[in-house]
């Protein structure tokens, strides 16, 4: 089964200034992101102290008779200050139903395992304070991916797209052990690729992208960002960069992006994904002009 058909409940149409392209700075969007989180706060944390939080969790298991039809289970979890969505589902699993299934590992927003669709938006469970959400908190698997069980989705397609951009440094002449010299890189250049290297492969962006939903071959924001990380790194030569741009400008590459900013909106690491995609479009145009 798939959640392909489900429409996000709170999908907003991107506002005009964003549609117009790349002018709006990352900072502005971050602030907006912040504001929207505050708006959603249902209550002060102190109001919840001693109370329970109501969560509704998507359930599905192809093998178990009463879970073959997808359903939502309700859990009431005792609230504790600082409780995250991940804390809540872990509590529900460890206390009420040990078959409740989801991926999680580091609990600190770096392993990228626990991206869920929470109240209609892609978020990392471990990084989302439950007190900031409207109750009941609806927790679903990431849309546009096959559901394996409960909140676990099949990540193979996402990994395939990540691998499709040749995501590795193409430094073919690494010197031998004895005389390894570091390559120089300017601080500016390191700064340029810094945000792109923060990706934790959580697949939130891919799940939020309408284009990726309709075109299975579209590389998607995460993979293009991965390519950006290499294409913009001065330590790789010009020839390699051209090769990378050729991969990116193919039919299902950068030109598919319609700058809706949904990926940038949901990225838990605040990577300016849409800006990176736009920049690669410009690079691709420049490269092609060069050969005219």
């Amino acid at each position, binding site marked *: 089964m798939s959640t392909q058909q489900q429409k996000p409940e709170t999908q907003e149409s991107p506002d005009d200034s964003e549609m117009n392209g790349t002018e709006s700075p990352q900072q502005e969007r971050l602030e907006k992101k912040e504001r929207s989180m505050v708006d959603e706060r249902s209550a002060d944390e102190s109001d919840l102290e001693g109370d329970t939080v109501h969560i509704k969790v998507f359930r599905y298991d192809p093998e178990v008779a009463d879970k073959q039809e997808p359903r939502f289970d309700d859990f009431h979890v005792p609230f504790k200050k600082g409780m995250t969505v991940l804390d809540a589902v872990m509590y529900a699993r460890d206390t009420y139903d*040990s078959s409740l299934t989801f991926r999680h590992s580091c609990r600190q927003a770096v*392993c990228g395992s626990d991206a869920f669709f929470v109240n209609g938006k892609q978020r990392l469970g471990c990084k989302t304070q439950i007190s900031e959400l409207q109750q009941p908190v609806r927790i679903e698997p990431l849309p546009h991916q096959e559901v394996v069980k409960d909140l676990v989705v099949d990540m193979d397609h996402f990994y395939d797209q990540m691998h499709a951009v040749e995501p590795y440094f193409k430094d073919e002449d690494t010197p031998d052990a004895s005389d390894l010299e*570091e390559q120089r890189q300017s601080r500016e250049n390191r700064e340029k690729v810094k945000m792109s290297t923060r990706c934790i492969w959580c697949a939130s962006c891919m799940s939020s992208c309408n284009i990726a939903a309709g075109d299975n071959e579209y590389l998607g924001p995460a993979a293009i960002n991965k390519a950006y990380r290499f294409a913009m790194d001065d330590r790789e030569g010009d020839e390699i960069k051209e090769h990378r741009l050729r991969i990116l400008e193919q039919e299902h590459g950068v030109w598919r992006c319609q700058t809706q900013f949904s990926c940038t909106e949901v990225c838990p690491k605040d990577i300016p994904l849409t800006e990176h995609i736009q920049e690669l479009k410009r690079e691709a145009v420049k490269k092609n002009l060069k050969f005219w």
Partner: protein
Amino acid sequence: MYEHDVIVVGAGGAGLRAAVAADEAGADVALVSKLHPVRSHTGAAEGGINAALQEGDDWELHAYDTMKGSDYLGDAPAVETLAKDAPEDTIRLEHWGMPFSREEDGRVSQRPFGGLSYPRTTYAGAETGHHLLHVMYEQVVKRGIQVYDEWYVMDLATTDEDDPNDRECHGVVAYDVQSGKIEGFKANQGVVLATGGPGQAFDHTTNAVSCTGDGHAMAYRAGAPLEDMEFIQFHPTSLPSTGVLISEGVRGEGGILYNNEGERFMFEHGYANNSGELASRDVVARAELTEVNEGRGVNDEYVHLDMRHLGEERILDRLENILHLAEDFEGVDGLIEPMPVKPGQHYAMGGIETDENGQTCIDGLYAAGECACVSVHGGNRLGGNALPELIVFGKRAGYHAAGKDLGEPQIKTGYGDDVEDETDADLPVAPGASGLDQSGGVAADGGVTADAEGILERTVEQTREQIDYLIEKDDGVQHAEIRAKLQKAMTDYVNVFRTEEGIKKALKIIRECREEYQDVYVDDPSRTFNTDLQQTIETRNLIDVAETIALGALVRNEFRGAHWRQENQIRDDENWLKHTLISWDDGEPSIFYRPVILEGEDKTYEPKVRSY
């Protein structure tokens, strides 16, 4: 059945590096991991990689600092290998594209870290581990190395000779988490365990939920001894509510610790008059808890770490990730207020006993990274020494397993002539297997030596029976209850400050956990992505590993490195310049000791008073 030359279990920094090395050496290598590689806990490492790269620094200084930091329980051949190989392996990461922080002239930046005589911690912001993990995975993708991700390795396929030194490991048995399918993985040349730490044995830990000591437990039950398990590092700066790590880089850049009276206690209360906040981690962790115990803690629980004076620009440049962590997991803005911190379980210095080529006493079985004990870190690991260990010893284990000659090791493994038996340990309860034990350890075949395939098939069969039993059993105890009890006992009694009485209590509770585990069952009947099953098996591993930590802590009646004992608060070099080794012995564990090697290549490291 799958078949490869080398099977690497675990795909964090050490596992990925081992796989790349085995591939470089021409072997057909595969990674088998319960997580997709990029989910591994190496990604949470923040601080950096110690390597003597600059002029004015050299590997001998690095080795000296490491030996001093280890409180003279590191083995010199391992320590020197680490210090010598680290520069080359660090620069190799740079060539593989690692986005290190840079100086104005374009060279990689290095910063001061606790216990270092030279600023040699090479870093990429405060997210060095994340970049290392991704760069290593990129190399695995580049080489087309086969990855079996979300396959949970349950057991080793090992022969069952009486003496573990005579045993051979022929592969592993794993099940596919997604489908429940159980398969044997035959390793023609070697199995490398790189399964990470056992932090989930404690309830306040910086470690991921996946850090359950699986490799430790499998190797232990197969007959490889666990070494120096009592040495657990409690990181001085973890966030109080979640255990999320705040990098030592904050103190490296100049961050200051204050108690509730606003005193800079590291100096004002004389814990480390020279190095202050940058004393070794064990020293700072004890200082913080002493402050709290003497009533000078903030809210009676933690102390403050202040970095505001570093200025926004420097913080954003070098420690930006810390701001996010403090905000997201503690609701504190590090730019305008101090961050609450307290010691949290962070790292296990001990592990599966190996030599400097990563080999255990079992033929064909290797270990590298946090699950292994070479031993580089001895009684206490220095900040910035875990990541070089991953790449240096991961590489060596991968090479050696693939047949590359790395020379004769100087470190000995397994029970032998050079060890001393522990004969009068005062144990409150018998450790080891209990009643009907659900995991076989070695494949007992009554002495009939089968071929590699036969041993593997038999281990697959045992694993299948074990899983069927757990899933088909309809009621009993659930793992979460046992795990919580175990974690609480370890945090209550085998923490920073340890007493004989407390450790004995812990051993009794561990025994109870074992007995309760006899009645454990898996409620989820599904074979699809059954995390209930996986956690149930992990819990068994945690019981075995926690018991060795407590046993080591009980017998080592001295104060060395991270291990503090109330009854004997001195470093007792006369009696304790030796490693603690615990062997499963088919369910009736025994304890023995092997002298530490302080003789290096051309000098001997004389134990000195360790002051910072």
